[in-house]
């Protein structure tokens, strides 16, 4: 023996999992949605994403290096993920300074001030998004419409002139906001159900933040994460089921003023939120039962806000609210071995 023996307590092998690897897994799962977004919104969406990622990574590095004077942890890719998720929650046409400001809030306030990865209470990307939404409501709700003329979408939401090529000119509300406007004006939804067809909702031909529109692509990412065992099915499936069931009940009683349940789960940030935002490790409960309670509450709160609240979109708020409840939900114990009689 040339070298000294290594001595350590067991176990002496490791699964090979690492934080970095898990983060990369989520990033891969987000790729299809990014691709679809680029197809619809052009390079603008890639631009927004790149800026968000770069600024998130920079702020994390800067804060750790010069303010906290701690070891730099940007190599674990969590800041990259925050950047991508933040950008997915922004309209593709948003100005660059807004993206940078959002990143600063997400990393600086929502993540680092709590102590960095693992200690934050709120999902940084969502916190950044909500911060921007409240501070700059107009900029944040001016959505470009995926190239309407090309896709030949017959929706009321974007009956625009056919010869528009520049994205900036094609702006409109999200289907949820549109539906809300109709109800507010005293109209009835069942006669206006041509807001967006189900096919277009699945493909993502609708107004919205650039990463949340492509439902099928997001579902593909979900399948990948389930396959790789990065997340379990509990949170996303429960959120969507709860939203479906709760909005279904409301719809059942008054079809004229409330939206179809399918419409709820296919529009807005429902898919992106349920699959990628609510499942954030740090801010979601650890036991399966805790996850289910958490997810049911997110589903209920989302529909409550969407139906009767002040905003057309409620997913972000619902998730942030339940993030705050996560420490409490972590008191839900797993079932211990040896309790079966």
């Amino acid at each position, binding site marked *: 023996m040339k070298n*000294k023996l290594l*001595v*350590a307590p067991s176990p002496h092998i490791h699964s090979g999992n690492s934080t970095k690897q898990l983060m990369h897994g989520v990033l891969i799962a987000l790729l299809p949605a990014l691709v679809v977004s680029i197809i619809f919104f052009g390079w603008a969406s890639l631009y927004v994403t790149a800026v968000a990622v770069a600024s998130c990574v920079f702020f994390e590095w800067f804060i750790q290096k010069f303010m906290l004077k701690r070891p730099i942890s940007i190599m674990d890719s969590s800041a990259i993920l925050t950047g991508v998720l933040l950008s997915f929650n922004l309209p593709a046409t948003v100005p660059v300074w807004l993206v940078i400001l959002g990143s600063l809030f997400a990393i600086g306030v929502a993540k680092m001030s709590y102590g960095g990865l693992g200690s934050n209470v709120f999902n940084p990307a969502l916190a950044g998004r909500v911060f921007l939404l409240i501070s700059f409501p107009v900029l944040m709700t001016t959505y470009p419409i995926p190239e309407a003329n090309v896709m030949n979408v017959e929706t009321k939401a974007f009956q625009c002139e056919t010869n528009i090529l520049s994205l900036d000119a094609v702006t409109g509300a999200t289907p949820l906001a549109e539906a809300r406007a109709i109800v507010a004006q005293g109209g009835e939804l069942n006669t206006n159900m041509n807001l967006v067809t189900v096919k277009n909702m699945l493909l993502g031909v609708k107004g919205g933040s650039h990463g949340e529109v492509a439902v099928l692509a997001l579902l593909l990412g979900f399948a990948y994460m389930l396959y790789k065992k990065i997340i379990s099915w509990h949170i996303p499936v429960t959120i969507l089921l709860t939203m479906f069931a709760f909005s279904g009940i409301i719809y059942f009683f008054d079809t004229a003023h409330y939206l179809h349940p399918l419409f709820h789960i296919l529009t807005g940030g429902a898919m992106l939120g349920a699959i990628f935002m609510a499942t954030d490790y740090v801010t979601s409960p650890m036991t399966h039962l805790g996850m289910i309670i958490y997810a049911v509450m997110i589903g209920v709160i989302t529909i409550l806000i969407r139906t009767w609240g002040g905003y057309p979109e409620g997913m972000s708020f619902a998730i942030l609210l339940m993030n705050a409840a996560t420490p409490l939900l972590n008191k839900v114990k797993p079932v211990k071995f040896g309790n079966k009689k």
Partner: protein
Amino acid sequence: MEDVLLSTVLVLLALGVLAAVLLYFVAQKFKVYEDPRISEVEELLPSANCGGCGYPGCKGFAEALVKAGDMKGFFCNVGGQPVMDSVAEKLGLVAEAKEPMVAVVRCAGSCENRPKTNTYEGVKKCTVAAALYAGETGCSFGCLGMGDCVDVCQFDALSMNPLTGLPEVDQDKCTACGKCVEACPKGIIELRKKGVKNRRVFVSCVNKAKGALAKKSCEVACIGCGLCAKACPFGAIEIKNNLAYIDYTKCKLCRKCVAVCPTGAIQAVNFPIIPKKETNENDVKAI
């Protein structure tokens, strides 16, 4: 507009008064009598809440002390004699006189004296390593060098010396609270009498292995030869389990044991340094 203002002010005022009255009665109803001397004594204590006295914090100590009505067995190591005297004065009692103590690290197994034989890779805590095995060196009794004692010290009196890999006690900062004694899984740290002018003589080893095994694992190990016990004119040294122990209540700091120890396991600290020449002459005489 003024009506609104006025009614707001009035309502809030009424609420405030109501709450104050309620609080007053509740406070009266649930009042707990506490001996005022407890808080007086607590104020005199150093508020370190170290638990070194054996009570849960300074408040616990004060409560127990006032309740007992006697100073016997009560001593605050942190505050020492002056604090105990002032407490005694307050309560009209007499404080027990107690020798000031200090924590002593009884291991001299530095990297030179005790070379490493393996590399530890688990959680860097003495408790974890001690639960697993003997440690990074051949000596299964000595210091593990991961600093559990340093971590528990509230007074910043302990620090790891990176050269020797052993903890060092700052005798001025040490309050002899005993936290480190508890924390050390190997039982190396001991509270000993601080001594006249901080001078102390102690066996800096806890190796209970037989002489040959002990010597093999560490250059400065106590091999239990018993020369020191024979040399001691006061009968302060006892050999038990191949290990010498100096009873600090009997030791008169004559340092005869230091001179005879073949491995240098007995340490004398804070004595004036003997000039080299003199020791050489002594050696010659001895031969």
